[in-house]
C-alpha cells in the first residue's frame, strides 16, 4: 500500500480522522480523564438517545433532506404518558410498553399519511407536533404530579433500558463484557475477510489485501478498546444493546435491502424513482412511521436513564439528531449518507460535549463550539466535494 492510497483512504474517512484527532486533543487537555472507564460508560449512556433518534432522522433525510422536528417533544409526551400508565396507574410494564409503542405507531401513521399522501411539507407537519406535544406532555405531567415530574418507575422497566448486564463493581474486570468484546471483534474480522474472499472468488473488484487488513484491524481494535474500558466500568450498559441492535438492523436495511435502496433513489431523484416503479409515496410514509417507532425506543431509554418523566425531557433532541446526521456526512438534500457515518458523527459530537464538560467549559460556550463544529463539518463536506469535480 503506497502513501497515495493511505491519503485517499484518510480523505474518504475524514470524519473518523477528525474524531481521533479531537479525542487526542481532549486526552491532552483533560490529562487523560476522558480515557477513564467511567467516561466511556458516560459517552454511551448520555448519547444513546442520539444514536437511536438519528437513525430515524437519517431515514427521513435520505428521502430528500426531510426532517422531523417533532421527535424531541414526542419524547416528552410519550414519557408523560408512560409515567401515567406505569407510575400513576401502576399498570403492568409489558402492557405499558406495548401501549406506548402503539401510540407511536399511531402518530407515525398519521404523520406519514399527512406528508406522503396529503403533501404537507415535512417541516410544517412536524412543527405542529413540536409545539403541541410539549404542551400536551407538560399539562399531563402537572395534572398528575405536584412537582411536574412523575417518578419512580418500576424496577423491571428500568432493568430493560438502563443499568448493566452482568454488573460488577467499578474497576474490577467484568469478564462477560470483555468476552463479548472479543467475540464482536472476531466476528468483524471474520466477516470482512470472508466477504473479501467471496468477491475474489467471483472475480469482482476488491480492495488491496493491505487495506482490508488495516480496516479490519482498526475496527476490531476500536471495539476491543471500548469493551475493555467498559469492562472496568461495571459491564455492558443495557442501553448499548439497544443502540447496537438498532444500528446493526438499519445498517443492514440501508445497505442490503430493496426498501433501503428505494430510500436512496427517492432522495436522489424522486421522479426517476417513480418512473422506475418505486412507490415513492410509500417510502415517504415509511420514513415517518419508522421515525415515530424509533422515537418510542429512544423515549424508553431516556425515561429509564433519568428514572422519571418530566417536562424538559427531549428538549432539542431533534436538533441533536439532525446534527449527528449532518456531521456524519448525511446529505442535507437527500440521497446519500450511511448509518456508520451517522454513528461517527454522533460520537464526535458526544466526545466534544464530554470533553468540554470535563474541561469545565461554560455551558454557553459549549453551545457556541457545537454550532461552529456543525457549520465546519458541512462546509468541509461541500468544499471537498467541489474539489473532486
Amino acid at each position: 500500500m503506497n502513501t497515495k492510497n493511505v491519503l485517499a483512504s484518510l480523505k474518504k474517512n475524514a470524519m473518523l480522522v477528525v474524531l481521533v484527532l479531537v479525542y487526542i486533543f481532549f486526552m491532552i487537555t483533560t490529562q487523560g480523564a476522558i480515557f477513564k472507564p467511567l467516561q466511556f460508560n458516560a459517552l454511551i449512556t448520555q448519547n444513546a438517545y442520539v444514536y437511536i433518534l438519528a437513525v430515524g432522522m437519517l431515514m427521513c433525510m435520505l428521502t430528500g433532506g426531510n426532517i422531523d422536528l417533532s421527535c424531541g417533544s414526542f419524547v416528552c409526551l410519550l414519557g408523560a404518558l408512560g409515567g401515567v400508565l406505569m407510575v400513576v396507574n401502576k399498570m403492568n410494564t409489558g402492557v405499558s410498553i406495548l401501549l406506548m409503542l402503539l401510540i407511536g405507531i399511531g402518530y407515525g401513521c398519521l404523520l406519514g399519511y399527512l406528508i406522503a399522501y396529503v403533501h404537507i411539507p415535512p417541516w410544517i407537519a412536524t412543527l405542529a407536533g413540536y409545539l403541541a406535544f410539549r404542551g400536551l406532555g407538560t399539562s399531563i405531567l402537572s395534572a398528575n404530579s405536584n412537582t411536574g415530574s412523575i417518578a419512580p418507575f418500576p424496577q423491571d422497566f428500568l432493568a430493560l433500558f438502563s443499568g448493566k448486564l452482568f454488573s460488577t463493581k467499578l474497576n474490577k474486570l467484568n469478564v462477560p463484557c470483555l468476552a463479548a468484546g472479543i467475540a464482536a471483534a472476531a466476528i468483524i474480522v471474520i466477516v470482512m475477510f470472508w466477504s473479501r474472499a467471496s468477491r475474489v472468488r467471483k472475480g469482482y473488484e476488491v480492495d488491496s489485501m493491505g487495506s482490508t487488513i488495516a480496516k479490519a484491524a482498526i475496527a476490531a481494535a476500536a471495539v476491543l478498546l471500548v469493551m475493555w474500558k467498559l469492562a472496568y466500568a461495571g459491564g455492558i450498559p443495557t442501553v448499548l444493546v439497544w443502540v447496537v441492535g438498532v444500528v446493526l438492523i438499519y445498517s443492514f436495511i440501508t445497505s442490503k435491502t430493496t426498501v433501503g435502496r428505494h430510500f436512496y433513489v427517492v432522495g436522489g431523484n424522486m421522479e426517476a424513482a417513480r418512473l422506475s416503479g418505486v412507490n415513492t409515496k410509500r417510502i415517504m410514509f415509511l420514513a415517518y412511521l419508522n421515525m415515530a417507532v424509533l422515537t418510542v425506543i429512544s423515549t424508553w431509554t431516556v425515561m429509564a436513564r433519568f428514572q422519571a418523566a418530566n417536562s424538559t425531557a427531549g428538549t432539542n433532541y431533534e436538533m441533536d439528531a439532525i446534527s449527528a446526521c449532518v456531521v456524519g456526512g448525511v446529505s442535507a438534500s437527500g440521497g446519500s449518507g450511511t448509518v456508520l457515518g451517522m454513528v461517527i458523527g454522533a460520537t464526535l459530537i458526544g466526545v466534544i460535549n464530554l470533553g468540554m464538560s470535563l474541561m469545565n467549559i461554560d455551558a454557553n460556550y459549549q453551545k457556541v463550539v457545537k454550532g461552529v463544529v456543525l457549520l465546519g463539518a458541512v462546509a468541509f463536506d461541500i468544499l471537498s466535494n467541489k474539489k473532486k469535480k
Partner: protein
Amino acid sequence: MADILLGMKSITKTFPGVKALDNVNLEVERGEIHALVGENGAGKSTLMNVLSGIYPYGTYEGDIVYEGEVCKFNNIKDSERKGIVIIHQELALIPEMTIGENMYLGNERGKKFAIDWNTTYAEADKYLKMVGLTESSKVQVKTIGTGKQQLVEIAKALAKQARLLILDEPTSSLNEEDSRALLDLMLEFKKQGMTMIIITHKLNEVAYVADKITVIRDGTTIETLENHGPEPISEERIIKGMVGREMTNRFPKREGVKIGDVMMEVENWTVHHPLYPERKVVDNVSINVRKGEVVGIYGLMGAGRTELAMSIFGQSYGVNFSGKLKIDGKEIKMKKSEADAIRHKIAYVTEDRKGNGLVLSQSIKVNTSLANLNSISSHTVIDKDKEYAVAEEYREKLSIKTPSVEQLVGNLSGGNQQKVLLAKWMFAEPDILILDEPTRGIDVGAKYEIYCIINDLAAAGKSVIMISSELPEVLGMSDRIYIMNASKMIGEMKAEEATQENIMAAILQSGRGA
C-alpha cells in the same frame, strides 16, 4: 434603401463538444415580421438567446448590430433596455399573481421601496387594451385561459417599450381560433411600426404573417426567402430549405428481422392535462405495435407524443383517461401505477434522462438494477454480487465507457448516460419499449450505437416505439411511422412510402384543416 434594424453577423456559438451555431447571419428590417424556421435543434432558440443576452457578449463570436451600433449585452436587462424583448415558448407568468403584477415583474412602477400600485394597474390596463384584452389587470393570471395568457405576455413586452419583439413558438399551446387572433394582432402591430421576429414550426402561419423567412439548419443559415408577392410563398418551398439535407449511411440496417403478431394495441386513447383537466393532451389516439417491429412516432414538440407514451406507461402523466389498452390481444385494466406497467412488460425510456430518468448521485450499478431490483433480491435482500454482475453484463453489452460500474452516473457523458438509461430498462426485461427521443443531445457516434441497440432489441422480438422529432432518424429507423400533431394522430405511413416532404405536408394539412 432597406432600413436595417438588427443585423446578426457571423454568429458562432460553441458549447462543450458541440457547435450550436456556425456562422449565422440574420438581417431584420425595421417594421417587418421576420420568421425564423428550422427543425428542432437547428439552433433557432440558441440564436435568440445570443440576441437577448442570455448568452452574454464574449461567449459567442460575431457581432450583433442593432440600430447601427454593435451591442454587448451581458444579460436580458441590457437587451430589454434597448427594446429587444423575447416572449418565450413556455409562458413565464406566475399563475398566483395578478396580471398587473406579472406585467411589471422586475420592472416595477414607483420608487425602489414603494411600488406604486395605482400606476401599475392603470398602465397595465392600457397595454391590455392594446392587445385586445378586456380583463382587469387585477385578476389572477391562473383564472384566464392560455390564449389570453399569451396576450398578457405580449402586453408585458409592450410595457417594456419593446421595439423588437421576438415571439418563440407563440401559438404552440393555442387553439386555431386564438392562434389566428394572435397573428392578426401581429399584423396590426406591424402597421403601427413594430418590428417582430417569429419562431414557429407552423409554416401556414409563416406564410400568413411573415415578410421574410430565414431558414436555419444544423446551426447555419441556409437562405432568406421573401414573402411579398400577391401569392403567399408555398410551404413546399420552405420545407425544401428546412429538410434539404442528404441522408447517407447514418442508420444501421436491420436485416432478416421477422415482424410478428400485434403485441400492443391502444384504442381511442384520450388523456387530459393534469392541471387543466378540460384540455386534451392526447385526443382519441389509436396505435399498435408488432413483435420485432420498430414504430416511429413523429411530431413537433408539444404534439402530445410524450404525453401519449407516459399515459400508456402506468398512467404516469395526465388525468381522466379513457380508451382501451390491449397487450397480446388481451385488454389490460391498468392501474395508475408505474410498477404495474413494468409488470405488464412495458418500459418507458424518458426523453429527460437527467430530470426523471437517472439518479445522478448514484452509481451505474444502482441505476441499472433500479427498475428490476426484485429479480436480484431474495426476500427483499439485494444480492450485491448478482447486482454487480448484471451491471457488468450491460456495461459490456452496451459498451458503456467507464472505469467501473461503481462510477457515479453524474460523471458520465450524455451518450453514456443514455446507455445506462437503456440498460436499466433492458434489464427490466420488457416486451414493449417506448423510447422517447432516445438520441437527444448525444453525439453522432453514440447515436449510431443507440440505433444498433434498437435493432438488436427488434431482432430479439421486442416491440419498439420510438418517439423522435428528428425526421431523418424516424425515417431511417422505423418500419412504420405514426404522425402526431396537436394531440391527435393524423397519419400512419409505411417506411417505404414515407418521405420528409409528405410527412411535413401531412402535418401542415392537419394544421390547416382544423
